[in-house]
């Protein structure tokens, strides 16, 4: 969850609406807090402030009546505390978890995450390697080691680690996503395109993956890539036509302009370009900045 953006959170919708505005949080009842935390456990999104608030409220007011759910809440709270940099509280929660589950690897992982947040990367790595010695196929520990390398700025090391990991676990989408991000940061667009293709194969109807692939292709440049990029932008727009995906429309516009700069007479390109400009004008009330660029 730390390393990669969870693709599910992009395309799925939550069952209960999570209150985004902090002003609403004061009015949350105990039952609502419990449901919010459950919802976040089932459909993971990263909202550390909300989780921290709800969790603390539950702990302060009605800890004993939560029963065995309190341990899951402690775990969520630990991660939220690390995210909001409340490290002492995080250490306290881990202590409680450890007293209940003394030999648990999950708790060890949380402890190592706190060390990471403090900056003690060596100690964190030691704990993760210990976990991996006991269970060599532990997905989360692998991910965290990659995250540590990334935090240290060692992108090459992180890439190599992910390669090793993916040799065995070839169907782990989150890892491909992370590898793609690393390659983009390195500037290695061909390999990023490869990772993105893997993601597309796994989730062919995800508009965001299509969008990312189109952007990588556009960055690669060259007329073949640009034509492919145009196709994938179109596909992304078709998959998600709302204004949340105006990024795809904008990207499509840029690609069409770039193709037009090379070949002014491509009829298909001109058609698509006309369509895009019409669409951007139509979207002006929702996205005035983008439409302003048309002029």
């Amino acid at each position, binding site marked *: 969850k730390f390393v990669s953006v969870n693709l599910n959170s992009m395309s799925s919708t939550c069952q209960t609406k999570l209150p985004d505005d902090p002003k609403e949080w004061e009015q949350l009842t105990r039952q609502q807090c419990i449901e919010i935390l459950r919802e976040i456990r089932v459909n993971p999104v990263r909202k550390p402030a909300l989780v921290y608030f709800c969790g603390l409220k539950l702990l302060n007011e009605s800890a004993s009546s939560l029963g065995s759910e309190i341990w899951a809440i402690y775990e969520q709270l630990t991660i939220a505390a690390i995210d909001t940099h409340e490290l002492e509280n995080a250490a306290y929660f881990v202590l409680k978890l450890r007293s209940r589950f003394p030999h648990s690897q999950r708790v060890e992982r949380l402890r190592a995450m706190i060390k990471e947040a403090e900056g003690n990367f060596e100690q964190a790595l030691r704990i993760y390697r210990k976990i991996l010695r006991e269970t060599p196929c532990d997905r989360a520990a692998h991910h965290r080691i990659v995250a540590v390398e990334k935090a240290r700025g060692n992108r090459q090391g992180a890439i190599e680690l992910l390669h090793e990991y993916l040799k065995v676990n070839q169907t782990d989408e989150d890892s491909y996503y992370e590898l793609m991000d690393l390659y983009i940061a390195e500037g290695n667009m061909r390999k990023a395109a490869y990772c993105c293709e893997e993601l597309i194969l796994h989730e062919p109807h995800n508009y965001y993956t299509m969008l990312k692939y189109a952007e990588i292709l556009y960055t690669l440049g060259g007329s073949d890539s640009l034509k492919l990029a145009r196709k994938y932008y179109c596909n992304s727009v078709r998959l998600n036509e709302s204004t949340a995906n105006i990024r795809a429309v904008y990207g499509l516009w840029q690609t069409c302009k770039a193709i037009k700069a090379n070949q002014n007479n491509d009829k298909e390109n001109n058609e698509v370009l006309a369509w895009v400009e019409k*669409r951007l004008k139509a979207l002006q009330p929702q996205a005035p900045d983008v439409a302003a660029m048309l002029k």
Partner: protein
Amino acid sequence: ADCRMMMMMTTMLLYGEGMVLDPRIRDWVLIPIFVVKLMDGLVRQFISVMLKSKKRTSKDATAQQNTLRRSGVFRASSQFVPDGAFAMRRKYYTTKVFKAPETSDENAGPQAPQMPMQDPFVMVDMMKQNLAMFVPNIVFMGWVSYFFAGFVLMRLPFGLSDAFKSMFQRGIGLQSLDVRYVSSLSWFFICVFGLRGLFSVLLGSNNNSDETKIMRQQMAAGGMQQDATKQFAAERTELEIAQHKYVIDQCEQRLVDQY
């Protein structure tokens, strides 16, 4: 004493009042068999929990299964990926990953890890375990048919056809007795099947007290763990005949036409 009870029962039956059974039967047969079966299920569950060792998945096995899954995903969604990517992946899979053995030597193919179903020692071990699961049942059946034989235990609340008489009224020698009056062995079997539901409530749905379910699961698992070499060969042929149908090609046209 037995005969006298039988005569009394038959006469009452003939008068159409239905049989009244001694309440001591309920106390000393019905409830003990039920309790014994319940304890048996609980003991099985706890023993299995104690004997369960941590699962160690071997890296090779997971790697091969994952490769197969990845190639399956590739074949399923290859229409969304451009031609170059499709060709490259297909070549990679058919030549490098699912390598055809150049010689006729079987070992040139991917080294199939020792799947449990093929390893002889592990097989014997599992068979012993399976046998051990049925032994308590056999013991109980013998116990019930020795101690609790020769009398009518209860009346079933539902009616059955006469064909079931031989099964349900094992120790009872009456020809004309209604099928609804059964012996204690049938109560034992009713407990075996009926307590499954109770165990799923008491112990959670994933309990080990039901031996037929466990057998079925093991058979299914054994069926899936085939030889990896064969699976690889199958995957290779699938890939070689796969064709690339590129869906994204007409995307732009469809977009412009749609709006």
